[in-house]
């Protein structure tokens, strides 16, 4: 059962009609296959055209889609093995940020990422993917291990932002994020970050200060949520669509600005329509990127990473370089 987004309503209506026809034709003699074919083609066309022309705000909805694949789904579908590691050794275990040893098509890596959760219970357990200081400090710990054992770091970023709460502030949310960013930059091994859903502000940067930053086709990445930006600059959250447009939050915009390096294509209708295909594309992209970075020394890797961030925004925008997807 697909849950439809507001702008997908016309598609939903067509798909419902198709399902109805199918059900009605069961056991009947009338041949409706021509009509079904016609409707299916129309529906597919509509989906293609809708997703070709998604506005930044619509993409934000897709990126937040409740059925969108999350960290745990990718663990299942992209990696051959996963050994989760837990705890920051100071305060606790934060399940908003997960990580551990993983194998990507035969290659040993360290995998870290945000997990939003799927149902009410797991969403609460994972705090909706909003990391606390202990989560970022766990990430730092894992990056340190990765560095010492020569493991490339792969991160999957999917958070509306770091958790805004009293305890998080008390335990140094800002310091934890800053140190996590620092740990990314210090890594002696390759690091590839992928924004798979939402890349929300500092809570995302802390796991995305990598030499290669990828984004799924309909993911968004921004300094503040469109709602937050709208309520500050337009004084009403209802202007979120305008804020999303103005801030340039889409993968396509960010590739043009040189903020991300590669867009990983999603199936027509978004990652949630075909998680397996999304996982396949993500795995292919990660493999290619890791291949390209292998053999570089720690010094070279750090230099690439540093130059990347020192240069962002200071030069003419780069043209989008799209090497995968449709």
């Amino acid at each position, binding site marked *: 059962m697909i849950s439809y987004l507001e702008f997908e309503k016309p598609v939903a209506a067509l798909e419902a009609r198709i399902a109805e026809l199918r059900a009605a034709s069961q056991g009947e003699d009338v041949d409706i296959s021509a009509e079904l074919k016609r409707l299916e083609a129309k529906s597919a066309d509509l989906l293609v055209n809708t997703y070709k022309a998604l506005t930044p705000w619509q993409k934000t909805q897709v990126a937040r889609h409740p059925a969108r694949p999350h960290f745990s789904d990718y663990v299942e579908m992209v990696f051959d093995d996963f050994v989760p590691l837990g705890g920051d050794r100071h305060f606790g275990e934060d399940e908003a940020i997960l990580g551990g040893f993983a194998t990507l098509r035969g290659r040993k890596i360290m995998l870290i990422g945000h997990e939003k959760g799927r149902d009410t219970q797991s969403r609460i357990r994972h705090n909706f993917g909003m990391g606390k200081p202990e989560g970022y400090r766990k990430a730092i710990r894992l990056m340190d291990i990765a560095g010492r054992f020569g493991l490339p770091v792969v991160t999957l970023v999917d958070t509306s932002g770091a958790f805004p709460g009293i305890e998080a502030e008390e335990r140094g949310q800002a310091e934890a994020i800053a140190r996590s960013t620092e740990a990314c930059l210090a890594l002696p091994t390759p690091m590839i970050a992928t924004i798979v859903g939402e890349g929300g502000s*500092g809570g995302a940067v802390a796991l995305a200060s990598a030499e290669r930053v990828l984004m799924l086709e309909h993911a968004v990445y921004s300094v503040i949520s469109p709602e937050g930006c709208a309520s500050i600059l337009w004084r009403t959250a209802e202007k979120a669509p305008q804020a999303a447009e103005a801030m340039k939050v889409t993968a396509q915009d960010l590739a043009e600005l040189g903020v991300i390096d590669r867009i990983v294509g999603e199936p027509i209708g978004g990652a949630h329509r075909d998680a397996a295909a999304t996982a396949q594309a993500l795995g292919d992209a990660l493999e290619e990127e890791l291949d390209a970075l292998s053999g570089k020394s720690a010094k070279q890797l750090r230099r690439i990473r540093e130059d990347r961030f020192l240069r962002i925004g200071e030069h003419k925008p780069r043209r989008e370089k799209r090497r995968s997807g449709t």
Partner: protein
Amino acid sequence: MSWLTRVRNSLPFLEKRETPDNLWVKCPGCSEMLFTREYEANLYVCPRCEHHGRIGADTRLGQILDPGYALLPAPEVREDPLKFRDSKRYADRLKQARANNAHPDAFTVAAGTIEGQKAVVGVQDFTFMGGSMGLAVGAAFVAGAERALEDKCGYVVVTAAGGARMQEGILSLMQMPKATVMTRRLKEAGLPYIVVLADPTTGGVTASYAMLGDVHIAEPGALIGFAGQRVIQETIREKLPEGFQRAEYLHEHGMVDMVVPRAEIRSTLAKLLHYMSPAEAA
């Protein structure tokens, strides 16, 4: 006409010596009317309630550095890279901010000495678009760090910002790792990096270079945090504790080394630089 204006107008002898608008200021802490000259002489700290007022870049530099320091030129950056517009054009907001400010953006760097010790000082100015961090702030921070590396001296940064400059979208966010590249380089070069947290320091600025100092000094009462108080309140729907996110609270929770009144910041910095003098090159 406010009562103050009326009082001023009834004292014509004062108007001859002073611009009336500059004669008195109201303390934002205790609402007392303070004699401007007295307030200035006290480094913009209220003599009654000790409230540390927000101050501009030049005032701050003058309070920290010995006379004769040199301002670094503001780096050239792409202006309004997103052609951003909300209810107003960002380009117009920038123009307006510049009209009211001595510097082209919110981060100003100077090289000089602090009680005789060589240092580069970068100050963030809250009066310039809330001190917000965009390309210009990031580039100025980098320029300051580069100068410290060149001069082989400490880098002192005074932070004051509401966070990232939303009108530069993701590019403002990218200033976090950018600044962090430089704090790492200072560390590798064995040079001290000291942060003075002024009111307010929040958002992405706190979550990057403001929390990466070798030593963190905070001004009394300064608001310092990652998330805004309104956002936190909306999320947890609980009353915030007394003194939450204030300098003293951060000190209690181990996030800053010391809370230092403005009058003692210069001598404190000098002392820290003395202890953290760069090791002689081997």
